[in-house]
C-alpha cells in the first residue's frame, strides 16, 4: 500500500480552479518530485496535503487514514513535516530556537511545570538544544547555532527551515523549492542534503524548478500544468513525454 494516496483532489478559489482532479500515490521511502510551470498549482497542492488549505473535493489518505480537512498541527502529529517556498522563519527567535520549536510535539508542553522550572523539563530542554545544534550541523549551519534568525542570509534560512522540519522526526517531508534563490554552490549542497534526508529513511516530496536537481534526486515525478496532472512517471519517462515538452517549451516546439 502507498504511504500517501491523493484522489481526485480539487480546490477552487472563487472562479479559479487552482488544482483540478489530481490523483497520485507516493510510496514509502522514495523521493517524489512535483514540477510544472509557475502557477501550475504545486504550492497549492502542498498546502492542501499539509492541511493549510481544505480541499473543495477529493480525498487524501496517509497510511489509509483520510487526512483531508485535518489541521496542520494534527498532520504534524502524524509525522508530516514541510518547509515553505516563501520563508517562514520566526525572526523573533535565535536560529537554534527555531529548530527547537520543530520538536514541539515531542516535549512536555505543560505551562505550570514550565513556569516553575521543573528540573526534568529543564534537562530535556538542554538535551534538545544539543540535538538541535547537531541537526543544524547536519544541514550545514553548524556555525550559526547562537545567531539570531534575522541576522542570517537567505540561503542559510532556507536550510534552517529544513532543520526545523527534521526536528519533528517526520516520516514524510514536503520541501517547497529548497533551492530557490540559492547560488550554484548552495544548490549543490541542498541537493546533497535532500539525498541524505532520503537515505535516512524519510519519504521526501519535492517541489523544485532546478531540473538538474529534480532529475538527479527523484524516483518519481508528477507534472502539473494549470492545476491539472499532465504526466507522472520516472525521470526518463517524463523527459520523453511529448505533453511535458510542449508545456515547458511551447506547443509548437
Amino acid at each position, binding site marked *: 500500500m502507498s504511504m500517501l494516496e491523493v484522489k481526485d483532489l480539487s480546490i477552487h478559489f472563487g472562479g479559479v480552479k487552482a488544482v483540478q482532479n489530481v490523483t497520485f500515490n507516493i510510496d514509502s521511502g522514495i523521493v517524489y518530485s512535483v514540477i510544472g510551470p509557475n502557477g501550475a498549482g504545486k504550492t497549492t497542492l502542498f498546502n492542501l496535503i499539509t492541511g*493549510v488549505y481544505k480541499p473543495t473535493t477529493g480525498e487524501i489518505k496517509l497510511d489509509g487514514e483520510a487526512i483531508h480537512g485535518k489541521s496542520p498541527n494534527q498532520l504534524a502529529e502524524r509525522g508530516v513535516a514541510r518547509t515553505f517556498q516563501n520563508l517562514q*522563519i520566526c525572526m*523573533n*527567535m535565535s536560529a537554534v530556537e*527555531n529548530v527547537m*520549536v*520543530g520538536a514541539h510535539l515531542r516535549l512536555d508542553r505543560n505551562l505550570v511545570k*514550565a*513556569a516553575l*522550572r521543573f528540573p526534568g523539563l529543564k534537562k530535556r530542554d538542554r538535551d534538545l538544544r544539543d540535538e538541535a545544534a547537531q541537526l543544524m550541523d547536519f544541514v550545514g549551519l553548524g556555525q550559526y547555532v547562537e545567531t539570531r534568525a534575522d541576522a542570517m542570509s537567505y540561503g542559510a534560512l532556507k536550510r534552517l527551515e529544513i532543520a526545523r522540519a527534521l526536528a519533528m522526526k517526520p516520516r514524510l517531508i514536503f520541501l517547497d523549492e529548497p533551492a530557490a534563490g540559492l547560488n550554484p554552490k548552495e544548490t549543490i549542497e541542498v541537493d546533497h542534503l535532500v539525498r541524505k534526508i532520503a537515505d535516512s529513511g524519510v519519504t521526501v516530496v519535492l517541489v523544485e524548478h532546478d531540473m538538474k536537481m529534480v532529475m538527479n534526486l527523484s524516483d518519481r515525478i508528477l507534472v502539473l500544468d494549470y492545476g491539472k496532472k499532465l504526466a507522472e512517471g520516472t525521470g526518463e519517462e517524463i523527459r520523453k513525454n511529448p505533453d511535458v515538452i510542449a508545456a515547458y517549451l511551447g506547443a509548437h516546439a
Partner: protein
Amino acid sequence: MKKNVYFGLYLVVALLAVLPFVVPNSFYLDLVIRMAINAVIVLGLNLLIGFAGQISLGHAGFLGIGAYASAVLPTHFGWHPLLAMGAGAAATGILAALVARPIFKLKGHYLAMATLGLGIIINIALRNEAQWTGGPDGMPVPAMGLFGFELSNDKQWYWVVALLLSVSVWASLNLIDSPFGRALRALHGSEVASQVVGVDVVRYKVAIFVLSAVFASLMGSVTAHYVGFVSPNFADFFHSIELVTMVVIGGMASVYGSLVGAVLLTALPQALATFEGWETVVFGAILMGCMIFLPKGLVPTLAAKFGKGE
C-alpha cells in the same frame, strides 16, 4: 538566552530588598508599591502582547473583576478575602476562556476591537449594578487578613508585593525559555510555521490570554485590598490603554522591559506634577518621543545599542 538570564532577576530582588530602607517617606513607599503591582500586571500582559503577539485592550476589565470580587464577596456575603480573591481569579479565567475561543478566530484590528468591547462591557456592568458595587461611587474593601494576622500598614504590603513581583519575574523568565514559551514566540514569528510543526495555535493563544487575565484579576484583588477602596475607573478603558502603553514603552517581548515600563509610567505623572496644568501635555510628548526614537521600547533598544542582545 544564556546563563545570565537570571542576572536581572537577582538585581531586581536585591533592589526590592534595599528599597524600603532608603525611601524617604510613606508617600514614596506607596508609589513603589503601586509600581510593583503594575509591574506584575504588565508582565502578564507582555506575555500576551510582546511574546505571543496578540493584543488586549480590555485588560483593566479583568483587573476590575478581581478587585470587585475582593470588595463585594467579603462585604455582602462575608467570604474570606483569600477565598474571594480566588473566586475572582477563577471567574476571570472562565470568562476569559469562554470569550477567547471566538475572539482568537479574529486577528489584528478585529481582535483589538473585540477585547476593547469586552473591557467596556465589564466596566458598564460594574457601574450599573449599584446595589452590589456602589455604582460610579465605588465601595470600600475590607482589610486582607490571614490566620488572625491583618495586613494593615504599607511596610507589610510592600513585602507581599515585592515577593509577588520577584516570583512573577522568575516565572516569566522560566516560561519564555520553555517548550510552552517557544511555541508562543513561534506563533508570533510565523503562525503557519508553528502550525506545521504541531502547535495548536488557537489553544496556545487562549491559554496565554487566560493566564494574563488571571494575573490581572489577582493583582486587581491585591490593589483593592491595599488601597481599601474600588471604583469603576479602575476598570475603565483608559486604564487598559495605560497598561498597554507600559508594555510598549518598556519593550515588547522583554521581561525587564515590562518592569521599566511599569515603573516609568507609574512615576511619570508624579514627577511631572511640577508642570501643573501642562503635565498631560508633557506626558504625551514623552510617550511620542519614546515611540519615535525607541520604537522597540526602552529595554530592547538600549540592550541592542550596548550590544548585549537580550
